[in-house]
């Protein structure tokens, strides 16, 4: 199996996998980074979203072979101690029900707010539309993104 060197959460990590292995499964099965979740495998639910060079992308769709040299951030690396403003907002609003989709939601929200620090309600809704929450905690997700924007502006 080929060896790939990936830059994950600021560290170089080597992984021996077949070239078509999606980043999602390399993270989960080979690097013990299980915060990134499997939901659909076809880029429809957002549970597996991570940052690649600052953009939120679906890690189930991108093969490891295309990821070399890119800066990848997972939920585990979003902050050192869970204090990223988006994580703080998520805690304050108490967003999760089952919690399974939340890492993907947080990764989408944090990348979005980096690009649009003062979003309107409609912009938040559009940005988060790609992430399914089966528990339907959408009211709180929206509220938490707005709160995180406030925190980041402080």
């Amino acid at each position, binding site marked *: *199996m080929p060896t790939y060197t990936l830059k994950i959460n600021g560290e170089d990590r080597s992984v021996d*996998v*077949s070239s078509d*292995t*999606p980043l999602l*499964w390399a993270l*989960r*099965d*080979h690097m013990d*980074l*299980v*915060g*990134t*979740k*499997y*939901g*659909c*495998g*076809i880029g*429809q*639910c957002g*549970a597996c979203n991570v940052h690649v060079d600052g953009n939120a992308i679906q890690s189930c769709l991108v093969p490891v072979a295309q990821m070399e040299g890119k800066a990848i951030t*997972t*939920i*585990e690396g*979003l*902050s050192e101690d*869970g204090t990223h403003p988006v*994580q703080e907002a*998520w*805690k304050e609003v*108490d967003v*999760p*029900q*089952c*919690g*399974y*989709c*939340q*890492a993907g939601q*947080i990764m989408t929200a944090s990348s979005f707010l980096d690009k649009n620090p003062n979003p309107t309600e409609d912009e938040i*809704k*559009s940005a*988060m*539309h*790609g*992430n*399914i*929450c*089966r*528990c*339907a*905690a*959408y*009211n*709180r*997700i*929206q509220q938490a993104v707005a709160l995180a924007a406030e925190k980041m502006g402080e």
Partner: protein
Amino acid sequence: MSTTISNSFSRRAFLRTSSLAGGGMLIGFNLFTACKDEVKMPVDIASLNFNDFNAFIKIADNGMVTIYSPNPEIGQGVKTSMPMIIAEELDVPWDQVHVEQGILNTKDYTRQVAGGSQSIRHGWDALRQTGATAKQMLINAAAAKWGVDASECSASGGVITNAKGETLGYGDVVKEASILDVPEKVALKDPKDYTIIGTDAGNVDIAKIVTGKPLFGLDYKTEGMAIAAVLRPPAFGKKLESFDDSSAKKMEGVIDVIRFGDFKGGGDKVAVLANTTWQAMKAKEALSAEWSDGTPMESTSNHDKLLTDLLDGNTFETLRKDGDVKKAFRNADQVVERTYESPFLPHNCMEPMNFYANVSTDKIHLVGPIQTPERTAGRVAEQLKRNIEDVHLEMTRMGGGFGRRLYGDFVMEAAEISHLAKKPVKVVYSREDDMAAGIYRPAIKYRIKAALKDGKITGYHLKEASINSNMYGLIPNFFPAGALENYQVDVAKYDSNITTGAWRAPYTNFLSFAEQSFFDEIAEALEVDPVQMRLDMLQKVKGTTDERIQYSAERMEDVINLAVEKSGYRNPKDGVYQGFCAYYCHNTHVAEVADVVIENNEPVVKKVTVAVDCGIVVNPLGALNQIEGGVVDGVGHSMYGNFTFKDGVPEVNNYDRYRLIRMKEAPKVETHFVKNTLSPTGLGEPTLPPAGAAVSIAMKKATGNRIYKQPFISNMAEREIIG
């Protein structure tokens, strides 16, 4: 004022109280709740005992309290709210409590189930007694240490105080307390003295959730564990003839390929074991198999006809009959009859089904997401012909349940594969597996017929045609049972080879839409206000002596009035079309008003105002989350949920073509609680059923069209006039 109650603990139940080697005490309880009205669950889980409950408290020398939450956590929040109730009566600051998930313990625990919105309701008395009893034992130990009477001592915030003002922490006396006799009577707090119950407590797992710590079954791993991807029959009705694994076996990481499924060395499934998930999934795709026809392959079009035939036929079982509906129809001024239809629905838990099993000669180790650990462990032991004592089952946090994880089919798969492969295995479903090997909400049709005379409903006849099972327990006794002189509920079913089961708020999730839309139409026919019509109907229920009637007319009135007031129902804003619904299920009374507006020529659900009477609200922050989720889930599945079969094959199997509600479609939910001090009831399900009904009624006002069929999105323009 506090309430002194006789302790229901026997001395024997406390035999497990013990000192811990490292200091502190472990209190084990085996409790019985006072709930006498048993909640009946669908046939498949009817064997579960909903009346017993127990819990564990661990108090350390330093006063730190660990509460083991025995019930499975599926997102309904019991891992936070149940320990809150113990902590309240134990009288310890919530921030000094550490909560851990209890494992399956068939010896000491007897009701480890997530289902029927019953955890809080059934746990209420037992959890309070658990906390209060431990507190009294700690007080007794302190009193003995001081040489004073326990009645001169009190405890609060984890500190015991005597008449002289001297204090001892719980940790100071925990060792002595652990060997005391169990008090025969304990005092429970008056709700006005609560300091934890009724306050907002965040999800106890939140820090782990937002940082991506391993919590879920899919995250669980052990050294040497194989991942199993399973090839199952492509259609309901197909059987496995033969398979070719020569390509799969040559693939990287593949360990083994095993036919299984009947616990006898055969079966209709093939497991591919590999080192990693991706390898297992890919190798599964490389299998080729021959399938033969077993039982008939069914299609949605067959079901449609079969259900209509059932409604037209005479194979009904009568579940409730008051008066004489036939006579009422004969004497009516007008008869209205409508038919309502719903499709199958998959549960679509975000975390696909998965389970870990390590079956060895001395032990069966099972780990993963399961709503019914006790029953499932029993089935594994039975199938593998092992003693239940050999089974060690740990529940992980679950990425959704919705009823799907009441069924342990995926646990049985893991156990059988591990048994055959002789190694630790985790079965992992792909999303496609999860959707195509479901235990679905069955397609159902309701036909409702009402007799109208002199401006009133004089007869009401509800017929249900369902697949594999019918409405159960007290559902036929929900409103409008008791409110009408002549009332009858009949059910009929068709047996299918498509697996069906409980789906969040079984039966009522669709019945509410049918019934409440029907009431709206009746009110229209009678030219009366639909809200007033319901309030008038409720008068007859007051003071009923019919023990089957468990909803309260007074509590229903409270939620109706609150929803009407808070939603502005009497004075809607221009361009806002409001639909009203009031419903009772899972012991909780709920009224909802949906606001629909027209945007770009389309009706859009903007907001749902909810009034809820669930008694005491244990954790308002968590309760609101359940209510918001239940409502949006109810709107989403009513609007978009659709699952069809063609020749036994599900026609969709992933989110590209299965539509779940998303952010932009989610209405804002505004919740108002009826404030009272009645015992709490559950919230995991009861706000879901009324949502679809309220939306359909608002849609009618906005568009002029009645909706008779789910999903609404495909049936919004349908119009059916019979009456």
